């Protein structure tokens, strides 16, 4: 039986019809240097041979001890999470086309939305977005629709925001007449200070983005920043780590609560990967987004609602769909097509299994391990913490020499020692971003410290 539906004749006829010589010609628009080229696998192998080859390739990755965070976090995933998520009833990435016929899928999404609302302290969540970075881009577009007091389409992005998120927001929203301006961070604390926002006071600004904890792992003064934004009629977009929310104040409560100042972030978004999704070379992950009920019509993506049928029985349905693309076409609120249903399924099971206490234990352990890591590594000559602000589960260390050779030497010992920040943050010098979650035990931290001490003895200090 042929598993490939098109015969060589079919392919030749199709190519002839559209007037190209070969399938490769269809990819001419993609510059050669961006193409994968030769993959280093034979053109055809038997299933058995292929299985053996792939097992060998996988083994060559080794089992490195990973201290890199920077937006994707290695957490323990309890075995039931994926055992349940991969059951036939759940095992699909898609919301069904006839959504209401799949009440179980809709109920799961409804439970997910309820959990995201509980974590963020917001009133309404959508059914997920593509990933954390694109969720921020969508939040920026949404803020322009929602903030009707502002006409400028100016959005302030802290330099302490994950630089990949900033890049994605600029790529997606920058072509829609949205102007992004960068707000610097304080070199001592590693936080976005109110003083650096003051120049924008009284100006026409659409939204301010604040990440908690920020890219460096530091805790921002979100109450003061939120008050400032609302006093200036600026919408506050919170980018948050869902694990950290088990310990930190929910964005829906950000602000002083002083009379006359609106309490809470206006749009909350972030990366859902820490909630039961494996690192897997960068994806698939999922983004989450929540907001106030007053902005629900400006929120992109699908929303599942709980309702009753004509006989009064409870049920679930897609709701507030009139502005989505299958109805509004090019004028839809968003062009988001992909939802990450399977990842959301895993995350919902993960949150259900852990509960609020379990998630708080994960967060506490991660915080403690990172504190231990920073203390232990800082005892090594030539290593010190870069910032003074309180942290969650990530920290910037300053080395007395270039970071890249140090990381390369650690990698040869099976340790991924962190992320070199010197390309994206040259102003910090030889800066290294490290992370330890609950998966790193005291022995792992000692192993890293021992290896780093050795490497620091053998690599040269920069002139």
């Amino acid at each position, binding site marked *: 039986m042929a598993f490939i539906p098109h015969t060589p004749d079919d392919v030749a006829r199709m190519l002839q019809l559209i007037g190209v010589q070969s399938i490769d010609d269809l990819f001419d628009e993609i510059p050669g240097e961006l193409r994968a080229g030769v993959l280093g696998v034979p053109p055809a192998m038997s299933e058995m041979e292929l299985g053996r080859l792939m097992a060998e390739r996988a083994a060559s990755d080794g089992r490195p001890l990973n201290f890199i965070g920077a937006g994707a976090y290695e957490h323990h995933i309890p075995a039931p999470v994926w055992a349940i998520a991969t059951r036939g009833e759940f095992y699909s990435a898609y919301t069904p086309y006839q959504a209401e016929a799949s009440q179980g899928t809709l109920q799961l999404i409804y439970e997910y939305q309820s959990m995201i609302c509980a974590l963020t302290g917001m009133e309404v969540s959508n059914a997920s977005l593509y990933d954390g970075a694109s969720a921020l881009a969508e939040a920026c577009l949404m803020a322009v629709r929602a903030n*009707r*007091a502002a*006409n400028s389409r100016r959005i302030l992005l802290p330099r302490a925001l994950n630089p990949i998120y900033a890049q994605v927001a600029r790529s997606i929203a920058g072509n829609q007449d949205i102007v992004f301006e960068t707000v610097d961070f304080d070199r001592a604390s590693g936080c976005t200070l109110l003083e650096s926002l003051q120049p924008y006071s009284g100006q026409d600004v659409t939204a301010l983005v604040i990440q908690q904890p920020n890219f460096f792992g530091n805790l921002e003064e979100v109450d003061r920043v939120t008050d400032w934004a609302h006093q200036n009629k600026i919408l506050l977009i919170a980018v948050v780590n869902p694990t950290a929310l088990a310990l930190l104040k929910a964005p829906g409560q950000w602000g002083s609560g002083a009379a006359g100042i609106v309490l809470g972030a206006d749009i909350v978004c972030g990366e859902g990967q820490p909630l039961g999704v494996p690192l897997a070379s960068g994806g698939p992950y999922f983004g989450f987004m929540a907001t106030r009920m007053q902005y629900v*019509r400006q929120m992109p993506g699908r929303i599942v609602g709980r309702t009753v049928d004509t006989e009064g029985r409870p049920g679930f349905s897609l709701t507030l769909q*009139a*502005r989505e693309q299958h*109805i*509004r076409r090019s*004028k839809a609120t968003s062009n988001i097509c992909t939802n990450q249903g399977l990842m959301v399924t895993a995350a919902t099971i993960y949150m259900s299994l852990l509960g609020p206490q379990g998630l708080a234990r994960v967060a506490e352990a991660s915080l403690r391990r990172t504190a231990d890591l920073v203390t232990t590594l800082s005892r090594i000559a030539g290593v010190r913490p870069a910032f003074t602000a309180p942290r969650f589960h990530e920290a910037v260390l300053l080395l007395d020499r270039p970071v890249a050779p140090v990381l390369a030497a650690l990698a040869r010992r099976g340790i991924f020692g962190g992320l070199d920040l010197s390309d994206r943050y040259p102003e910090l010098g030889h800066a290294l971003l490290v992370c330890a979650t609950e998966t790193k035990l005291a022995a792992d931290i000692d192993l890293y410290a021992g290896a780093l001490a050795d490497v620091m003895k053998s690599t040269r200090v920069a002139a």
Partner: protein
Amino acid sequence: MRPAHGAAPNGVVEVGISEHAQSALGDLVFVEVPEAGRALKAGDACAVVESVKAASDVYSPVSGKIIVGNAALATQPELVNQDPYGAGWLFRVQTDLPLDAASLMSAADYEKYLADEAK
């Protein structure tokens, strides 16, 4: 569109959607009206009417500045269905004078246009 409070000597007009439009959309569940003070040009989308099955932009027929949106529609969008030419108005505009009426369609012409469309 009609002059607010009878004639429009001061150039203030009240904008809504037609009987035909409200009927075609069906029961409205949400109406978004523009903020006071917003400057707009004729043809700018400045309001949205949303029914359970569709959401449509409403374009300003004139250039000028928004004086006020109809706040009553926030809780009673059905006013647009019930009384599109009265209580269901969407927003009031201070038009840039002189008003260029030649570019607008009279009610009689609109009826004729709809009848021709239906043929």
